[in-house]
């Protein structure tokens, strides 16, 4: 009896140890290779994580491309395919490790599958269009509200009827070269971006194709006039747009934009115009570089280098963000260029809408500066008093006293 009891206990202890060690073995195996249950393939957890937009380490697929030791032996079941299965071949194409020979030239031609393109497409047709569209509509509503609340900013004092040259013909030419090309680029760019959403439903695909093709030609070629105008404007006005203490005083009074009869002193360019100038220069240069990158596809990659520079600053690590990718496929470079080009364009257009408003319907006498080049002296005294005094002193001629 005792012997039977002892044997039972011994058996139970042995079984408990046995199952425990087996369980530990399974756990260890599971920790070492979490996809052992699927033979190395992705698990339901991987699929669910990917569908939830979480980052999945895809090493187990990326490396299973049939190359090197991962290929099946020639005598194995897959030997007839040279040891590489179709799935492995497609993974090699997808992750860019396949040995490809193409007759088309350029590194981009060797990229057969680029699944990052789907992220680009979703971002382009989703958040990019929505946020950008709201920004432009928001700016138009803001300007319309400002107009109804503040009204047109009039010349407060009595008009003298005398004129003063504010911008010479070269300055006006440079401004209109930049402005005219910007408007054409803005319109054709918006047509390209919003065409599928708003124009195709109205006029159909074939009619839109003609417009889109013409718009592409305009966008690609007018870009050179824009870059020339940008260079011209920068060279002509950079010295007069260097910030100084007068700008702080001007900004402190809101430029007199929000209250009647307030006219903070300003030189040739006030602080508001300087902000516009530097925004145009910086955004214009940036949009030109990304535009050139798209104008010459795959030849001017810039984002991998830019990302490396950003990573080197260590700012992202300080903010707890992961490093930006420093190796990009040729197509990814183009996709980043397109997205950056569009983001900059939206901000640029929003700023220029405000500039157009103040230079036309928003302020009496402002358009003359770029129209005829000559402004009413009372306007000059109110909005650019320091500049007016400088001109009178330098020329020795007071337009209001000249016969």
């Amino acid at each position, binding site marked *: 009896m005792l012997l039977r009891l002892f044997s039972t206990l011994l058996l139970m202890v042995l079984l408990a140890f046995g199952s425990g060690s087996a369980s530990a073995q399974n756990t260890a195996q599971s920790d070492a290779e979490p996809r052992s249950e699927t033979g190395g393939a992705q698990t339901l957890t991987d699929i669910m994580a990917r569908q939830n937009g979480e980052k999945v380490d895809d090493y187990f697929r990326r490396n299973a491309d049939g190359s090197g030791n991962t290929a099946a032996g020639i005598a194995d079941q897959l030997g007839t395919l040279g040891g590489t299965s179709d799935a492995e071949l497609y993974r090699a194409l997808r992750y860019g490790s396949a040995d490809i020979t193409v*007759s*088309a*030239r*350029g590194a*981009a*031609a060797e990229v057969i599958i680029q699944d990052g393109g789907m992220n680009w497409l979703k971002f382009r047709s989703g958040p990019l269009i929505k946020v950008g569209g709201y920004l432009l509509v928001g700016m138009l509503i803001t300007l319309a509200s400002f107009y109804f609340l503040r009204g047109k900013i009039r010349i407060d004092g009595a008009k003298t009827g005398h004129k003063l040259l504010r911008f010479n*013909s070269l300055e*006006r*030419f440079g*401004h*209109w*070269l930049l*402005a*005219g*090309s910007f408007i*054409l680029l803005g319109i054709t760019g918006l047509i390209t971006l919003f065409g599928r959403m708003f124009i195709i439903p109205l006029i159909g695909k074939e009619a839109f194709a003609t417009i889109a093709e013409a718009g592409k*030609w*305009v966008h*690609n*070629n*007018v*870009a*050179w*006039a824009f870059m*020339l*105008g940008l260079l011209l404007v920068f060279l002509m006005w950079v010295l007069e747009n260097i910030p100084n203490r007068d700008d702080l005083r001007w900004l402190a009074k809101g430029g007199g934009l929000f209250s009647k009869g307030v006219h903070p002193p300003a030189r040739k360019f006030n602080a508001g115009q300087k902000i516009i100038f530097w925004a145009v220069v910086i955004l214009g240069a940036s949009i030109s570089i990304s535009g050139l990158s798209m104008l*010459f*596809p*795959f*030849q001017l990659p810039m984002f991998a280098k830019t990302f490396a520079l950003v990573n080197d600053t260590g700012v992202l690590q300080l903010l707890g963000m992961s490093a930006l990718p420093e190796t990009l496929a040729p197509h990814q470079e183009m996709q980043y260029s397109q997205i950056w080009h569009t983001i900059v364009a939206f901000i640029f257009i929003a700023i220029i809408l405000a500039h157009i408003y103040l230079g036309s319907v928003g302020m009496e006498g402002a358009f003359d500066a770029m*129209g*005829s*080049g000559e402004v009413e002296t009372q306007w000059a005294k109110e909005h650019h008093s320091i500049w007016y005094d400088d001109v009178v002193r330098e020329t020795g001629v007071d337009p209001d006293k000249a016969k």
Partner: protein
Amino acid sequence: MKSFVVACVAIVVISLTSSYALKSIGFSTQDQTTGAAVRVE
């Protein structure tokens, strides 16, 4: 507004010139990314 008109003419001239120049030096995407055995039309 003479400057505006001159600038508009300049935009047209620059655009036509750039189109012609880029085509002449074979800098189109089509020329750059295709070989003798590939045709993209």
